[in-house]
């Protein structure tokens, strides 16, 4: 009987006894969780709704995610409708007024930078396009600098007690980050004017940053898997003289890029689209190290 009481008491109380960090950060994608961890360090608990092996368009509003949003102090997401299928549902179901759009607790990363490919043509015949622009802003480290300052300001506002710590961490991060950007830009000089075919239109920010030209996508229409017909037109249009590499993300089906690589001889590579996408991309710094290393390795293969 006593055991029963104990079990009952534990089950009732346990959910409310939670390890309290000062800020709970719910990130839609791993890169924003990594950024929050850089600035928050031991004062924040970060959680990423997706992993680098998941297509962030097609996530379901799972019970676990609702529970996480319920307790979040900050929600940070790429935005530009990347999470339109599930984030509005999570926000509606989690009953947490602190993180609704328009509050200090809601940070939409892509709204802080200049988005590429904004359009007023929202015809879905052209695929699942984002009229607010391409949401994959994390592939340009200069975007991350801007987003880091805003995230820091929000964290300092929401957790005043730890504001000095956030400021210190931010200063250190900002210094290391700009040094790293300089280094990456130096390393990536040979990549300028290289041409790429990308699986999905996920790499426009990286391409523009490094001066790479994206000549085509494996998906003829964004969000619709590559079709045999489209792939064979690509075989006819491109060869090793006109394209340097075919890029895909870890969550995308390898078959399309492999098929095209076999027929054209163009090198196909897998690049992490976020932190955790490859085993060496363990944080924001190694994420870009991994991208540039792989691109350089692939372009050396050519010569």
């Amino acid at each position, binding site marked *: 009987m006593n055991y029963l009481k104990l079990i009952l008491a534990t089950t009732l109380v346990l959910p409310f006894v939670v390890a309290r960090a000062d800020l709970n950060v719910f990130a839609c994608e791993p890169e924003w969780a990594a950024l929050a961890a850089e600035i928050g360090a031991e004062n924040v608990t970060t959680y990423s709704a997706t992993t680098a092996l998941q297509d962030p368009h097609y996530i379901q*509003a*799972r019970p676990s995610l609702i529970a996480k949003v319920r307790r979040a102090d900050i929600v940070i997401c790429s935005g530009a409708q990347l999470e339109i299928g599930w984030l509005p549902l999570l926000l509606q179901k989690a009953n947490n007024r602190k993180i609704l759009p328009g509050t200090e607790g809601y940070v939409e990363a892509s709204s802080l930078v200049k988005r590429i490919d904004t359009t007023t043509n929202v015809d879905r015949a052209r695929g699942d396009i984002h009229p607010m622009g391409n949401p994959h802003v994390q592939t340009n480290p200069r975007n991350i*600098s801007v987003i880091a300052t805003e995230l820091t300001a929000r964290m300092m506002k929401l957790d*005043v007690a730890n504001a000095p710590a956030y400021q210190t961490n931010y200063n250190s991060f900002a210094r290391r980050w700009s040094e790293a950007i300089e280094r990456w830009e130096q390393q990536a000089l040979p990549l300028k004017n290289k041409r790429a075919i990308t699986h999905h239109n996920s790499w426009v920010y990286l391409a523009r940053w490094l001066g790479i030209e994206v000549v085509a996508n494996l998906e003829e229409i964004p*969000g619709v898997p590559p079709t045999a017909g489209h792939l064979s037109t690509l075989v006819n249009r491109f060869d090793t003289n006109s394209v340097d590499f075919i890029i895909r993300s870890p969550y995308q089906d390898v078959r399309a890029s492999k098929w095209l690589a076999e027929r054209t001889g163009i090198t196909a590579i897998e690049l992490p689209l976020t932190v955790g996408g490859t085993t060496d991309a363990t944080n924001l710094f190694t994420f870009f190290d991994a991208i540039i290393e792989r691109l350089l390795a692939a372009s050396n293969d050519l010569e």
Partner: protein
Amino acid sequence: MSNGIRGGLLYVLAIFFTGGAAAQTEDIELLRAALNELRQDYELRITALEARLANAEQQASQMASASTAPAPVARNVSAGRAFNPAIGVIFQGQAWNHQKDPDRFSIQGFPLGGEAGPFEEGLAIGETEINVSANVDDKFTAWLTLPVAIEDGEAAVEIEEAWLETTALPNGFSARFGRFFSAIGYLNSKHAHSWDFADQPLPYQVFLGDQFLDDGVQLRWIAPSDLYIELGAEVFRGSRFPGAGAQKSGYGNRSLFINTGADVGTDHSWLAGVSHLAATALDRPSGDEDQPLNFSGDADTTIAHFVWKWSPNGNWKQRNFVFQGEWFRTTQDGTYTLPGLMPRNYDIDQRGWYAQMVYQPFPRWRFGARIEGLSSDDSGPAFAGTVLGQLPDDPRRYSLMTDWSNSEFSRLRLQYTLDDTGPFNSDQWGLQYIFSIGAHGGHSF
């Protein structure tokens, strides 16, 4: 002596008598705290300024280097809705082949109500659904579903759902009011276009009239725990099946629900719940419209549901598998009036269940199987030989389906059902389409 001097003297005396050193340290502490506060405030402002500056620089440099025509910097956030209000239209249509007349359809022992029963045979558009939603202001959000159906050759618009919900209640609460699908069960609140089969499983058809909705209020609470726990209660007017006649002064149907769920690793997630609907009915009609049987009394339904989803690495788009099952128990206690007869006491305990699996082996294609069953106690000699009398066998249905989705917004489905609900077995074939335009629907679990 002026007040200032007197105050100063008192202060000096106070320091003298209470120990000046201590007071001084306290003062210094106070000063230090004030300074700290000041510094934090300035640091905050500086960081904000830095952010704005960096942003401005970024914009300037990108404006300069942008090869495309300069577009306005998109500062608007998108987790709300791009258009206001968000409008979506869902087109549904089907062609069915079976040997049952929807108007005369009945299952021995299970009087039907609401929308229950098979689809019309042949080509037919079902409901065309118009959804409109938007935030009302900073504290309320609104949703409207208007199905347009062709009934007896004429288009009929209905208000299926029209509700408002709070967004700003504290401590994990929210309240909804208006007309809405009750949160009981798993499938009850799902709109027809998100079902995995063209029709609802038998227990939903029999015990809830396909889906239970009514005018009412709902209070919902989410626990602040890592384990998802949702508790809720609803009160409805009581004008819809399984209730009728807006009993209890117009508060005739009441429900309670609890849901819980979690992830297991990255590949698995589950949801389980129990819910209860207590309905009261006065002259609730079933069967033939011209010669209905009427029930008056209490109809209590308890539902347990379990859903388990699997996807390698949680990458839903590529490959996924869903198992779901629900178990129903309904007790009805009251009187039934058969056409032309006096009311007779009716006290019965009935069960229903279904289990289904849907597998998506690769993008676009899904395959599913479903089994459904009903069982019932004997209604007693008073109903022997009537439509409410005992059934020889428990009703069963077996279904297979496959569907193809070109995108998130289009779906074509083929479904086969072996209907063994009596009096004869029937093979039912259905082709269905579901298309949506406008507002992007959500991927609810």
